[in-house]
């Protein structure tokens, strides 16, 4: 070996050693530069060689190339013109892989980055093309073509970058992923890792339809490869892997393919079905959801599945509710299977279910259409109680109630009462939370729900009565059907009366409820009548505005109101005299400062509540204006027209006795509780 050779050898050895020592990422970048030099160099050579015989892309697809240029130069997006011409250009590009490759080159003149930037640029072009099937296909074709051009490992590196894209770009990519998966098989081990990573990235987002369709397409177009993927997931434990494997297994099972596939699939399926660990068993069970949704669930299979779930561990039973419910929601399920599933749910749904199972059951029940609604209602009742913190479940309950109210009012009122009796306390807590059940309450307003509410008002249990009072107040009810009042016994009436004493109601509602009680109270003993009269007087003192107004409105019907008003008028007259006497005119040092502190805290609380209650305040950023009487906003390079400031105000009558005699009002509530207990209400 001469000295030159040994020098070269030594230099290469050193370079190799240095390269070995580099971090993996750095190695990838060097490799990428080498690949670009090579590919671009070859492409340049090809271009030079082809030039005389081939149309330049700029002449064959001018619109498309303009959009690509705008994309690479990061120009602002604007609506694509000549849609039909553009579509034509896209179709012809799709028909010619070479032109697609050219387009990739035009989009990435400096080479394809094996990083999220690739997808971001494709997505940018995708948006410029307009959101439609053609543009989806082109974006998919660009991805497919790029993967095809890259070495296998580089292709996987690029795909592995997909979960790192931010939202909404990631979800945009899922829409054209199917094109790639239909066209191209992936290395099974890579796919077994990659698909779950995409599921993980999707998380709880509901915009995952594109992915699952793509995965099903992959199974349909590359079933043998999909079986390999499934095998790779045989020891699965992660939730994402389970979801992917269940989809693959359920889809493969439903394929009407040759027996060769079934021969390969059967042992794998058996392996999952009989696995010792819960992960693969869950894959097997869940796979039936996909089979059912593809219309391939047989009665015998479903019976076997329900038996398997019933015999499973507690965890599997919990998951089983989700599986059965999802299966039953399949639009192509047979009526036999539906009946089997429904019967199983009716036999197994109970209050002890886990929140997740309850969610599955109630979500399913909320989607059941007649004639199965009464069964669905029974399922919801069986799953009670649902705790207030499980807001998702309550949303499904609300959905069910609204559906019922709109389509079967009689069933709605019946269910309202039953549901209240099943879970009144928790429902009331949810109803009292800001912005909860607004949809249902808005639908209930103006409907004749007084009968149902009346039943709740005079119910045996305290929580139902409280719920009844809530509805009475919130729905601005003014009456309860006569038949409800007529069949009341003294005890029930007294219970409702004392319940109202210890429940906080708005002034007008409080007055209206007392007016409702007047006729039945007149049938009661004199002691109770005396207590009732005192309550009328107290509430008139408590709410001299709204309560008095309601009483005045019904004055002619009920002379007792006249008497109470006269008594309270005398009270206020005396109060006026006392106030003018100067007896309480003195000030107390420190009170003005405390009043300021109180006002500040009060206004903070009001502002916070307003923010919690208002959809609009949540949507927009709040800007505190410092000067001026008008405002305008600079946004997207333009200044809006000036708007005038608007003033909004609302007022609420505070219960004055709560501030004059807070101890007395508390003791009154305590006394009411004692009376309720004495009346033998065991549910206290």
């Amino acid at each position, binding site marked *: 070996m001469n000295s030159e050779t040994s020098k070269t050898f030594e230099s290469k050895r050193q370079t190799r050693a240095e390269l070995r020592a580099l971090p993996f990422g750095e190695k990838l970048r060097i490799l990428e530069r080498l690949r670009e030099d090579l590919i671009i160099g070859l492409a340049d050579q090809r271009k030079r060689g082809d030039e005389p015989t081939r149309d330049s892309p700029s002449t064959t697809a001018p619109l498309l190339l303009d959009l690509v240029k705008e994309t690479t130069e990061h120009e602002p997006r604007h609506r694509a013109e000549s849609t039909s011409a553009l579509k034509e250009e896209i179709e012809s590009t799709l028909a010619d892989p070479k032109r697609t490759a050219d387009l990739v080159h035009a989009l990435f003149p400096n080479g394809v980055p094996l990083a999220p930037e690739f997808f971001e640029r494709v997505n940018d072009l995708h948006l410029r093309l307009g959101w439609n099937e053609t543009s989806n296909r082109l974006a998919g074709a660009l991805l497919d073509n790029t993967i095809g051009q890259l070495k296998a490992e580089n292709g996987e590196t690029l795909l592995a970058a997909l979960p790192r894209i931010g939202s909404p770009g990631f979800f945009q990519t899922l829409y054209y992923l199917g094109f790639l998966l239909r066209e191209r098989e992936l290395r099974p081990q890579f796919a077994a890792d990659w698909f779950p990573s995409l599921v993980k990235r999707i998380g709880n987002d509901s915009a995952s339809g594109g992915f699952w369709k793509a995965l099903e397409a992959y199974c349909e177009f590359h079933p043998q490869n999909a079986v390999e993927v499934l095998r790779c997931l045989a020891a699965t434990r992660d939730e994402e892997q389970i979801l992917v494997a269940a989809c693959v297994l359920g889809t493969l099972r439903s394929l009407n393919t040759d027996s060769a596939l079934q021969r390969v699939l059967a042992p794998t399926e058996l392996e999952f079905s009989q696995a010792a660990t819960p992960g693969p068993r869950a894959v097997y069970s869940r796979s039936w959801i996909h089979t059912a949704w593809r219309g391939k669930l047989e009665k015998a299979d479903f019976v076997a599945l329900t038996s398997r779930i019933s015999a499973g561990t507690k965890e599997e039973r919990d998951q089983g509710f989700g599986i059965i419910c999802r299966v039953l929601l399949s639009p192509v399920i047979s009526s036999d299977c539906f009946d089997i599933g429904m019967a199983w749910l009716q036999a197994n749904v109970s209050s002890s279910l886990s929140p997740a199972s309850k969610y599955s059951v109630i979500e399913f029940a909320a989607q059941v259409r007649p004639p199965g609604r009464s069964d669905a209602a029974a399922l919801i009742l069986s799953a009670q109680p649902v705790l207030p913190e499980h807001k998702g479940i309550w949303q499904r309950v609300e959905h069910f109630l609204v559906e019922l109210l709109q389509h079967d009012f009689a069933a709605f009122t019946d269910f309202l009462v039953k549901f209240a009796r099943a879970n009144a306390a928790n429902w009331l807590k949810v109803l009292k939370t800001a912005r909860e059940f607004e949809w249902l309450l808005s639908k209930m307003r103006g409907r004749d729900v007084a009968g149902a509410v009346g039943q709740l008002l005079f119910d045996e249990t305290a929580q139902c009565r409280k719920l009844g009072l809530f509805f009475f107040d919130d729905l601005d009810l003014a009456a309860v059907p006569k038949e409800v009042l007529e069949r009341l016994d003294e005890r029930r009436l007294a219970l409702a009366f004392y319940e109202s004493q210890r429940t906080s109601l708005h002034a007008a509602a409080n007055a209206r409820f007392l007016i409702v009680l007047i006729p039945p109270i007149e049938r009661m003993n004199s002691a109770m009548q005396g207590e009732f009269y005192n309550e009328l007087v107290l509430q008139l003192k408590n709410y001299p505005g709204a309560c008095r107004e309601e009483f005045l409105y019904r004055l002619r019907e009920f002379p007792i109101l006249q008497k109470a008003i006269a008594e309270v008028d005398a009270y206020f007259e005396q109060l006026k005299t*006392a106030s003018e006497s100067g*007896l*309480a005119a003195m000030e107390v040092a420190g009170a003005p400062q405390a009043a300021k502190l109180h006002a500040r805290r009060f206004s903070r609380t009001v502002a916070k509540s307003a923010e919690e209650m208002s959809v609009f305040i949540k949507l927009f950023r709040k800007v505190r204006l410092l000067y001026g009487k008008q405002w305008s906003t600079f946004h997207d390079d333009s200044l809006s027209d000036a708007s005038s400031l608007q003033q909004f105000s609302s007022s609420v009558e505070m219960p004055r006795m709560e501030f004059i005699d807070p*101890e007395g009002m508390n003791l009154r509530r305590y006394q009411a509780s004692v009376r309720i207990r004495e009346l033998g209400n065991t549910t206290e």
Partner: protein
Amino acid sequence: MSIDFKTSFLTYYIRGLAERTRAEKKGTKFGFDWIIYNLALAEDLIPHRLPFFRGGANEISKTKTEAEFGIDAAFVSRDDKVLTIFVLKDEPLTNSTWTQNDFDADLRRAAAPDLEASGLKSISVVRVILVYNKDEDQTGIELFERQTKTLGTKVGDNVQLRFERWNLTTLTEEVRERLLTPSLLPQRFFSLFSYLCSQFADFRHGSDEWTNQLIPNWRRFLTDLLSENADERAVRLLPVALLILREHGIENPTAQTGWIDLVEWAMLSAWNVHQASRNSGVRLAVHQMWVGFYLAELEQYYDGHSNELAARDGLEVNHAAGYVDTVVAAMVAFWHIARLGILAISFGERLPRGDKNEMAALKQAMRKVANWLTALLNANPAALRPLLDLHHIELFLIWRTFWQLGRSNDIFAWLLGLGNCLMVRRAGATPLPFLEGGNSLTSVFEAVATEEKPLEFCDQSSMLLLCILEWCFSLPIQERDRLVELYYKQLVLGRDSEGQPLGDSQPIDLLGWVPPEDWGKKILIKGLADEGESQSFETLGPDALQDGSTIAGHFEKFIRKSRSARKTSFPEGLPISVVVLACLKHRSPLPAELWRDSIFGPVAQECSPSR
């Protein structure tokens, strides 16, 4: 205040004045020459001859030593036509004083003025007014009449001569009609007192300005007036000053209660003079002021407002400040309770031993005030809302008002209601905090306004609860045991009626307080909260909590030990009502002996509660 009252205190004051103001070794001797000077000014007369050199705002006018020739002061009318000559005498007009004290000689000289003097040449009428700030007898009047007739009706040929005689009543009337202004006071107080009058007119009673400006100024005035060696005249000046102040507060809607507040500070200063003085005149003046001025004023005030006191929620405060208003209402209610209580117990301690009619009248008055108090308690929830530990003073007054009439049922009903209301707060069922042991109203306000108790808020210790437990011993045993059990188990230990802890509440430490030995000398001047000895009553163990009787037994032992270990003696000559007022104004806890002596009898006897 009635005209009679006003007149009588003005009379007291004017009668005590000397002829001329002068500084003496014992202190300044106030004279009514200053009053005459100001009356003349009020009548728009121009001074011609004054008995003093007028000084600056804060100086005493210096008396002239020149011969006066019978004329103490002379004034000319604006039109220069009338010359008014005052002949002043601080003696009664009698046969013996007529010549002895120069009534005769001075009138003669005054009737012959030198009208050739500069400024008197246009005079057509000469008025000679004999003013004496004492009474007279018939002979004295006859001597005056005879003399004036002898002196004729003319000076020279053309000038008319007229005589007038102002005795104490006339002078008082003149003052009441025309001179209820700061000018009535001796000149050296004019500046500060004028300022006080304007503050009284402007500041609302109880406001920050009232508390931080007017009250310190008023107390400074009182200190100036009643400094060492204060004589009867100085004491007599106090009601006059207060009457003048009152005239200035007509437009102030809080003047009535505010004025009572000022009277109370004045009374404490006066009682302080009383305790230091052996002068019977001074002591009598203080007594008269206490009974005839302060207590009479209180009685008259509540007589006029008894209907409003009984009006349901009549003490309600509505400034739209939420529970801040609730706190203010309680403070207002407790203010009235204190005054009614002082009035009631003052009637009690004045009960004479012999005169049946007077005794019946006083008993009637005691019942009247007790009924006012009952009406207030029944009509106003705020009256059952003590906020500070020091509110034990007002609660004591309620107890004492009922106790001195033997109204056990009222005491029981009141304590039961109070216990229930306190229980609501102890349980945290309202935003109102429990009793503030540090007696800081600021902390209470902060706790209510922010719904967060400040760090310094102290509700772990209470003297008030111990006081209530001790008052329970004034009731029949059955009621006593019921209340002791309720208060101890529920309020002190913080448990509900079923014995379960109220949230995370901890037992409250009960504290007794024994004043320092010399408390009687100090209490009229300052608060004693930082002096004396605190006695902690350890929380009872489960064995001691069987029932009210067992718990009461422990308290009885504690009281006996406490009394024998630290004896409290009461200052001689100081009524209990004054002691309570002093504790109230100086924010000082009450010595427990105030009720222990009544309930358990004198210490030496070691007896059971007397019922």
